[in-house]
């Protein structure tokens, strides 16, 4: 059972890695976008899925990662790798500085507070000369989609391995305990403030890396696109649809939803805008614990699974 599972995952990974050799340019470009958003969903999974803090601030980390790369490459003529590290450092500092006060809030209040962060960052960055103000920055182009594709895939693997480590480490158990019952976790000796801040930072680091790769790939960023709150909503939908707090759920959610969304926007344009809204409603009402939980329990419960979820909302 376990070995077949690992074999399947490795096979899927090998096929994904080979896409640039057999796929069209369009497929590779779609792949880069889908893989990066899967990284974002996986990053959100750490703070939202494991620690239970629904962050709307992860697009800020994404933006900081983008600007880290852009500023380092454009303003300081540094290599891409240094830019990525600069973005990561920005995200980590931001996570600690803002995480400490904001992570004291719980539930909706935390969500609202982080929602405001993205707006604030857009306004701030629009006025920073180093960041090109509201005009943005144009990066030196690198026309090598297969490279960006493999980079994104590598990052997704790294993020997923990190989450796998969470499920069997003291740190991960501490986060789950915080999610399930924060006061109960503290009286058992979990340093909740430290753990939440570390989770926020780790989550932010992956978002920043994704943002950095994306910025170099599209070669242009401005405050509006870098700190796009819509991106944050997308990563949440994907993580929640796939299964928050699971190792592979967010990846499956992100890749499958990206594929459907891409198909709709090219085939039935008028319906594409509705798609994510419909997914949210369906996911929340029918399978609030995500695809992973549904696949696990549908086998034993059948259609009763959905009925039970609807009932538990007391609609």
């Amino acid at each position, binding site marked *: 059972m376990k070995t077949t599972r690992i074999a399947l995952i490795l096979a899927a990974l090998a096929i994904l890695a080979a896409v640039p050799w057999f796929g069209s340019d369009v497929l590779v470009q779609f792949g880069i976008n889908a893989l990066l958003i899967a990284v974002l969903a996986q990053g959100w999974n750490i703070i939202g899925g494991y620690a239970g803090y629904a962050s709307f601030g992860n697009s800020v980390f994404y933006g900081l990662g983008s600007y880290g790369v852009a500023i380092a490459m454009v303003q300081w003529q540094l290599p891409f790798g240094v830019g990525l590290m600069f973005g990561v450092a920005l995200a980590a500092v931001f996570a600690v500085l803002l995480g400490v006060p904001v992570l004291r809030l719980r539930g909706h209040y935390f969500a609202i507070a982080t929602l405001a962060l993205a707006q604030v960052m857009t306004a701030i960055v629009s006025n920073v000369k180093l960041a090109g103000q509201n005009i943005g920055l144009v990066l030196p182009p690198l026309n090598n989609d297969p490279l960006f594709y493999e980079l994104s895939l590598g990052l997704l693997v790294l993020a997923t391995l990190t989450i796998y480590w969470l499920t069997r480490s003291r740190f991960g158990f501490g986060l789950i*305990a915080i999610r399930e019952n924060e006061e109960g976790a503290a*009286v058992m000796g979990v340093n909740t403030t430290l753990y939440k801040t570390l989770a926020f930072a780790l989550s932010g680091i992956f978002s920043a890396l994704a943002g950095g790769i994306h910025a170099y790939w599209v070669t242009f960023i401005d405050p509006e696109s870098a700190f796009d709150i819509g991106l944050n909503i997308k990563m949440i939908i994907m993580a929640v649809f796939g299964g928050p707090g699971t190792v592979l759920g967010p990846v499956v959610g992100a890749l499958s939803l990206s594929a459907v969304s891409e198909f709709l926007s090219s085939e039935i344009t008028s319906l594409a805008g509705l798609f994510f809204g419909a997914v949210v409603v369906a996911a929340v009402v029918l399978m609030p614990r995500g695809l992973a939980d549904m696949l696990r329990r549908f086998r034993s419960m059948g259609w009763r699974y959905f009925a039970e979820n609807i009932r538990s909302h007391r609609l």
Partner: protein
Amino acid sequence: MTAILEVSHVTRRFEGLVAVDDVSFALQRGEILGVIGPNGAGKTTLISLISGTLAPSSGDILFEGRSLLPLPVYRRARLGIGRTFQIMRPFPGLSVLDNVAVGALFGRGGGQAQLAKARELARVQLDFVGLGKNVDQRADELGGPGRKRLELAKALATQPKVLLCDEVMAGLNLVEIEEVIEVIRKVRNEGISVLVIEHVIKAIRSLSDRLLVLNHGVKIAEGDPGSVLSSQAVIEAYLGKRRA
């Protein structure tokens, strides 16, 4: 006997209400101290003040001679203060085993870093409280009595020196109460000092070495169970004054 925990002149106010009013007492090493009192007497507040989920308005709490007040909740747990909650706080999405393993992973001295070892310790604690057969269940699948035991196992897995039990017998039937009493006696025999808050007077009378009675946040009696329960002040607190 020496005191492991000293509560001295502790007061806690909630906007106008004094939940705990200048209460002082000591928990001796290896003793079972029962705290009783009518509803709203301040019993749970007292436990929260010791475990750190609430801060006292004034007074001091010493653990092994050292003030606990500057320490956050998790640091107190790492020193060896374990507590259960009256309103149980299991981690519902985790298995019973992993609920308890969290205690072993953290807990006194920082806990056990290895998950496999923590689970082993958790298994021992679950056997100890009589939940050995339920290890693989999800915590939210347990019934009320099971959850009470789970609360105990979680607190014990942190390897406490002092165990604070908040109404672990409430809602249990007589047989179950007897079993929990047995568990708490075994806990004491392992050298852990226990403070038990209880509503069920009969149960606590046979269990406690000493009793402390709170009423409206004030300590009205302290001493051996027999004489405390027959004292006039305690009878009045529970039953009201006899009208002449």
